Structure formats: C-alpha cells, structure tokens
C-alpha cells in the first residue's frame, strides 16, 4: 500500500538474512527487529544461520543467490570470507546490505551500530563520574571484531588521559561467560583491591564483573562501565547501590529494522547511503532509577531514540507496530 515497486506486491519480494552469530539476546532481539520490519513491509524473509562458521556463511550467500532472493542482509562475519561472496551476490543483481561487517564493496551499504562510539561514550561517562585519574581494570578478549573496535576507544582514551592507570587486563569467552569472568574478576580484585573503575565493554563481561565486585564486597568502591543492554542488565543496574554505573547501547531490534529498511530502499531503486549508522545511547543507572525503567520496552518508551532510530527512513516506509 503506497509503496513503490516492487514492494507494492506483498509476498512477491524475497529477502535473506545470512547470519554469522545467532546465540544470545542481542542476536535474538536483532532477529526480532528484522522479522517485524520485514513483515511491516510485506516481504518474504529467509534466515540462514551459519552458527559462527564463517566459511559456511559465505556458502550460504551462494545458497541465497541460488534461491533467487531479491535482497540479502549479511549479519556479521569476516571481511575476508564474505568479500567475494558479497561481490557474487551483487553481480547476480541482488541488493545487499551488510551489518557490522565491512565487505569492502561500494555497492553495499554498511549498517553499523558503531562499536567505537559505544566504547567512547561509556568512557566519557566514566571520566565524567570519576575524573581523569583512576585505577582501572579492563575486560578484553582480542580477536573478536566488535571488541577490537571498542578496544580502539579504550586505547585512545588511555593515551589521552595519562592519569588512567590500567592495572589489570583480563577476560574470557568461556561459557557461561558471566560466570567465568566473575571468577577472573575476583582474582583481579584480590590482587588489586584499589581499582575504582572497571571498563567491561560487553554486557556479559559487565555482569561477571558486577558479580565479582559484589562478592568481594567492593560494591561502593567500584564503578562499572559497559556496552550493550538487556532486560536483565537493567535489573542488575538498578539493584540498590549497584556498581554498574552506565552502559551504552543501541537497541538491537532497531538495528534489525534499519537493516531491512536500508534493503527496502535499495530494492525500490533508492540509496540509503554508503554507511548507515545507528547511533548509540548512553544509559545511566540514575536515569533508569529516575524513570523507573524495568525492561527494554520501558526503556524504549522513556527513551524515544532507543525505540526508533530515524535512519534509513522514507516517506512511504511502514514501521512495525509497537
């Protein structure tokens, strides 16, 4: 209804979502966003899950091509393995957008939640709360693309503020992540009981650190700054006297919606731009408490920029029902 061709014919257009990562709340919420926006536009969505197999993900793009889809969303993955596959899709006349992976292709717009900005905003808040001179612990596992991008922000902030003393770097992706990181953080706190700031730019890390801080009885002394948010994170941040001071996040569902909208624009012959950035939002403990926010839905209603990102919009674009 009111949409330009080919979207005017519901069910005729088929798109594929080719995923690298799928396990966890972020990805589930992201998928939710993709699904609801796809439904709102009336396109047929196929989901390919490569379960962290980058090679398989590339094959799945070929699989989608063979299925004759009109558009593909590539969700995460490795530049090296996806570049060729994405190029093949473009050559086959398929519209492609990539989320959080750079496929080095001018014909493919890149949707980003800007991990760099996530890190940056969280650290700015940390400096605002704690001054620019403190002892910090940092949770980091190299080799994971979004964490590497957030690391860049940390390195910059550290360089710019010589008063920040990074006394410990730790972190692990052992399952369950929060539990394993809690154990590590406990050891770190045992060795460095004078830490006042923990930078844990991934909410599973932050959860682990918070557990450890509570168990070590250092709740009042330490502030945790992190990235990402979920309903569970909100309740942890809102525990009385919680050490989890702030987190910076985009709404994964919104990111999912933006991906589909960008693709829709391309399918109708438009151009969403080379780079589509979904701006992150700073969420502080005091904000959550003041507004009595209990879950992601509350957060969305109290924080409109979290509920809906005004990117990749056109006048005809239908939005999912809230």
């Amino acid at each position: 209804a009111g949409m330009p061709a080919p979207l005017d014919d519901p069910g005729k257009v088929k798109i594929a979502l080719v995923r690298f990562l799928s396990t966890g709340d972020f990805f589930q919420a992201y998928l939710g966003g993709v699904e609801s926006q796809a439904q709102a536009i009336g396109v047929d969505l196929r989901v390919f899950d490569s379960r962290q197999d980058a090679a398989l993900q590339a094959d799945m793009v070929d699989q989608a091509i063979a299925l004759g889809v009109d558009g593909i969303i590539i969700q995460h993955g490795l530049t090296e393995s996806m570049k060729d596959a994405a190029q093949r899709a473009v050559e086959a006349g398929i519209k492609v957008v990539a989320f959080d992976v750079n496929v080095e292709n001018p014909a493919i717009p890149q949707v980003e939640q800007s991990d760099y900005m996530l890190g940056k905003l969280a650290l700015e808040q940390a400096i605002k709360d704690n001054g620019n001179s403190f002892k910090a612990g940092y949770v980091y596992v190299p080799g994971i693309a979004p964490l590497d991008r957030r690391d860049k922000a940390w390195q910059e902030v550290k360089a710019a503020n010589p008063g920040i003393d990074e006394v410990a770097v730790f972190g692990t992706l052992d399952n369950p992540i929060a539990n394993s990181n809690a154990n590590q953080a406990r050891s770190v706190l045992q060795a460095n009981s004078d830490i006042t700031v923990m930078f844990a730019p991934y909410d599973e890390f932050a959860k682990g650190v918070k557990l450890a801080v509570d168990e070590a009885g250092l709740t009042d002394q330490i502030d945790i700054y992190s990235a990402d948010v979920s309903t569970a994170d909100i309740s942890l941040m809102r525990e009385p006297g919680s050490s989890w001071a702030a987190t910076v996040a985009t709404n994964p569902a919104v990111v999912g919606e933006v991906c589909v909208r960008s693709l829709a624009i391309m399918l109708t012959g438009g151009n969403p731009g080379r780079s589509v950035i979904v701006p992150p939002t700073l969420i502080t403990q005091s904000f959550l408490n003041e507004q009595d926010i209990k879950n992601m839905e509350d957060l969305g209603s109290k924080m409109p920029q979290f509920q809906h990102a005004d990117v990749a919009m056109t006048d005809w674009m239908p939005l999912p029902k809230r």
Partner: protein
Amino acid sequence: MNSEFGLREFSIKYGFLVLLAGLVLFFSIFASGFAGARSAVFIFQSVAITGILALGVTCTLVVDGFDLSIGSVATSSLMMSAYMLVILEQSAFVAIIACLLMGAFVGLVNGLLIVKMKVPDLLATLGMMFLLIGLQRVPTEGRSIATGMRLPSGEVADGVFPASFLWIGRHRFDVFLEKLIPVPVIIFLVVALIIWIFLELTRHGRLMYAIGSNERAASLAGTNVNYYKILAYVISGITASIGGLLLSARLGRGDIASGNNLLLDSVAAALIGFAVLGAAKPNALGTAIGALFVGVLLHGLTMMNAPYYTQDFVKGGVLVIALVFTFALTSRSRKGGH
C-alpha cells in the same frame, strides 16, 4: 635400589600433591594477595561448580562410561530454574526439585540408552547433549530469562529469583572471618564427601568399580550391572543439575550458554584426579583435588595478570607434565603387571 624404589613410590603417591603445594607456594610469594583465607575460599568457590560436575563425571568413569551431556544438563538446569522462577513464578523449592528431577531424568535416559539400547556411551550422551542444547532454548526462543522480560506471548514476566533461591548461590557463612564461606563451597565439599563415601566406603561403590574393570565378571558375581550403570548416569545428571542450580543462583538469571566449557573443565578435573595419590583410576578425592588444582592455577595466573591465553597454555602444560610424571612412573613400576 631400595631407596630408588622408595623415591619412585613416593613420587607416584605424592608427586602431584607436591606439585600443587609448590604452585601454592610459588603464587603466595609472587602474587601479592594470593595467600590468605579469603583467597583460598575464593579458589574453592571458583571451582565449586566444575568440581560438582566433575564428581558426577567421576561416577560415570568408574563404571567405564563417559557422560558428554553434563555441560548441557547444567545449562538446562540453569534455564529451567530461571523459567520456573521467573516465568512460571514458582517457589525456590519447587524450582530446585524440578531441576534435580530433570537432571535425574536425563541421567536415566542416558543410562537406559546405554544399558538397554546398547548405544555406546559417548554416542548416547553426545546425542543427549545436542538435544538439550536445543531444547533448553525452545521455551524462550533462544532468549535469556530475566525478570521483566517480554514473553513471546507479549506478556511481561513478573517472577523474580527469590532471596531463598539466590541464597544457595550467594550466601556466605561467617567462619572466623565475617561472610567467609559461600554456600556453593559447602555444597561442593558435601557432594565430594558423599561421593567419596559412596565410592570408597560402600558396597555400591565397590561394585561400580568392579563393573568398570570387568563388567561380565561383575555381572556373573551377581551384580546388577544395569542398575549400577544407570545409577552412575543418574548421579551424573543430578550433580550436573546441582551445578546448574548454583550457576543460576549465582548469576540470578537464565543465561543462554552451551556449557561446553563446563564439560571440558570438569572432564579435565576428573582426569587430573587420576594422578592424585597415584590412583591411576577415577576417584572422588582425586577429582576434588584436580578441580582445586585448576582453580589454584587460574587464580594465581590471573592475579599475576597473565593474559587469558597463557592460562589455557599453562593449564595444558602442567596437566601434561603432571600426568606424564604420574603415569610414566606408575606404569613402569607395574610394567610386569600384564
């Protein structure tokens, strides 16, 4: 000759404990804050969950079986308890009982598959592992469970993790120092004690070892082989679900996790246990000490700010060296023995 013999005997028996003591000493000197009651308690706490799982694995190893499903039973128990508490709004008691029953049931199914259907143990429990990893995600469509979450139906889940439930993961008893010993550590020690008594001091344990050594002979000596094998898997399922409950109470939410690392770490602990006191077979005391050993190592290394990847490396290295030591010596002294 005699003294050499004595030395070897000593190495077999105490070599591993000496290594452990050496490690503790090393870290006490070089990692400030390592020595001390709270630090020691923390080590216990950090290995409590894997340790409990490892004790279950030990029981299956004793009957010459193997349980690959424990990691996923633990995470299923984690998800299930959260589901019971947050979504079904049940009491802590009900949630705990349900999870223990679930663990026992999975163990029973594993046991029946192995004993009645003659499916090889690795295979049956591998299948079960995949099954559970999938199953535990179905009710919430792959979402973690936390208070306030929106259900697929659109409703908001209002249940909470009650304090009584969190208590089992978080409470600390005052012993000498205020809030020193957390409940999971107590549970770990109690489970270790029970399993140790069960395996070493009761006739049931003795018969399970007999089954592990020669199943046919045990059966012809009147042992109910099927019963004990199933029992071993049931124990393993229950300990895994206890581990999951503690995890749930510690985290206070139902996290999506595969449990693979729980599996590997607890298998490692149970296997390291072979080397303790020269047992060269699965044993509860060894398993508990094996778990502690890994805990000491990781805690010490983290305190010394070693990057995470060196921990795996050192864990592997020490494991291999300690075991080469024990097994090479044990086997040499027994070489005539076949």
